[in-house]
């Protein structure tokens, strides 16, 4: 056993037993961050805080929510909204955060793509992030089921139907997932379990993994410059802070993070108090009815682009295209074959590719919300095909990219 001395303070007592000083160094005061990064690098912190808001508001909602098809709708829309003191606040925070978190995730993702933060050495950061995105999507979907409104029911019907895998016709699998022939009590309770236990645990584990992946390659920077973190941190510790290219995470970089976070929270609570309805679909204020489909089924805004890739094609090609869109982002580090770690504007055809990808996804999002009639179907098919073509072209255009600066 280690040798223990009489502690001189509570801090010393803990330090002897838990090495809190070393932990703090590794995680905060000697965790090095490049100086040349902009506000887009604060999105990670914003996501962590938003996840915290979701967790806390979710715990409060859980105390009155009832996972029963007969009681669920009223427990949310009546009990929590008008009887529980400040119940409306937790619900609005939970609903707004669930929507806004995806906006920030997309900004976070596209920042990574723009600056090449997924490239050599940083593949695991990207892959763990994409796994987190997929798990978070499951979390959002299972949560959307819980108020048991019309959209909950029919979204559950449509999404579980996907598991029959088109021509394979695995109806038995669909019924097994639902625990019934249609979404019912068994279905609601298992999605409740997924939403409050299993998936949050998986999300938290993946967040830890995502942070751990940063430890060795460190975060990228605005210029894609390869920084010798050992040398630069020595400079900093020896007092030459001005010439060092890095700063401490706590409190140097954190102060910048917190400023950005402050702006975000103003925007966030503005939505919570004045525009919470943007996060709530009016159709979901009708109780679930298994004998009546809403005239137009669509998911929340953040899933519209993948939905539009599924929708305009016939069933089997639609499922293939949908599957492609779900997984293709994970392979980005291996599809981009250029060695350049640089912002998109300093690269060749990739610059155009990046903006086309963003534009395609925005277009898909718009078409996903429009009814699938006439010209919309045609445009939807074209845009969805273009999305797939973009990804297929990526290895080719990046292969011919010229190395920057003779590297």
């Amino acid at each position: 056993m280690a040798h223990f001395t009489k502690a001189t303070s509570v801090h010393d007592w803990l330090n002897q037993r838990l090495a809190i000083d070393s932990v703090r160094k590794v995680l905060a005061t000697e965790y090095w961050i490049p100086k040349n990064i902009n506000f887009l690098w604060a999105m990670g912190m914003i996501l962590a805080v938003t996840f915290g808001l979701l967790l806390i508001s979710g715990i409060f909602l859980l105390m009155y929510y009832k996972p029963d098809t007969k009681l669920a709708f009223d427990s949310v829309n009546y009990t929590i909204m008008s009887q529980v003191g400040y119940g409306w606040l937790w619900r609005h925070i939970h609903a707004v955060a669930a929507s806004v978190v995806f906006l920030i995730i997309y900004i976070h993702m596209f920042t990574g793509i723009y600056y090449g933060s997924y490239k050599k050495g940083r593949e695991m950061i990207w892959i763990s992030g994409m796994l987190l995105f997929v798990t978070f999507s499951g979390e959002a979907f299972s949560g959307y089921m819980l108020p048991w409104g019309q959209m909950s029911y029919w979204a559950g019907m449509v999404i579980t139907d996907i598991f029959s895998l088109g021509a394979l016709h695995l109806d038995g699998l669909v019924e097994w997932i639902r625990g019934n022939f249609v979404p019912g009590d068994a279905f609601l309770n298992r999605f409740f379990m997924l939403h409050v236990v299993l998936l949050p645990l998986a999300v938290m584990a993946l967040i830890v993994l995502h942070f751990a992946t940063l430890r060795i390659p460190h975060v990228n920077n605005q210029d894609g410059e390869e920084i010798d973190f050992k040398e630069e941190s020595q400079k900093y510790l020896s007092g030459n802070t001005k010439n060092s290219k890095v700063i401490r995470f706590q409190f140097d970089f954190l102060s910048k993070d917190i400023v950005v976070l402050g702006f975000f929270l103003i925007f966030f609570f503005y939505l919570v108090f004045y525009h919470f309805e943007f996060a709530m679909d009016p159709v979901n204020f009708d109780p679930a009815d298994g004998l009546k489909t809403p005239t137009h089924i669509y998911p929340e805004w953040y899933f519209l682009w993948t939905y539009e890739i599924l929708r305009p094609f016939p069933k089997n090609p639609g499922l293939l295209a949908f599957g492609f869109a779900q997984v293709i982002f994970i392979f980005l580090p291996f599809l981009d074959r250029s060695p350049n770690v640089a912002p998109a504007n300093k690269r060749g055809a990739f610059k155009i590719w990046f903006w086309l990808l963003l534009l395609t996804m925005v277009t898909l999002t718009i078409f996903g919300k429009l009814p699938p009639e006439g010209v919309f179907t045609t445009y939807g098919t074209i845009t969805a095909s273009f999305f797939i073509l973009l990804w297929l072209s990526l290895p080719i255009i990046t292969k011919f990219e010229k190395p920057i600066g003779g590297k």
Partner: protein
Amino acid sequence: MAIKKERRDFLGMALGGFTALGGIAALGAAKRTWDPLPSVMAAGYSTIDLSAAKPNVLNVEKWRGKPIFILKKSPDMKKDPREVIVGDNRYLICIGLCTHLGCIPSYFPKEHKFKCACHGGQFDASGRVLKSPPPIPLVIPPFKIEGEKVVIGEAGEEYKKLKADGLTV
């Protein structure tokens, strides 16, 4: 030493084998836990009286929580091997869920068409696909004709024939 190592290998494999067995048994239990309950499986029959049906008016009944479409055809609707003949009348009997992703199509009596608003699929009055994405016609559930009544959930002669002819899945 050699003997000892062999014994360790054996112990390792035995441990691994038992762990695998336990794992498989646990997976089996987990799978069964997610199976539909016996009460759900038992609620499998609905009896529908056809004598009150009016031509070209869609009746929606419920079976296993799913909507069942019953449409009495009017004389001007064209004949189709998918239709069910009860007495002198022709009927469409099918599960009222679009075969694309499971939404309920609505019936437009003037056009004699079903239209699914969600993904734009269309079916004719015999449940055949007029416009994709639906990959197959509306599914005919197991049924049995008993005089003027039809029992959904039980496979009668007429249903077995339709199935043998490949007219439903």
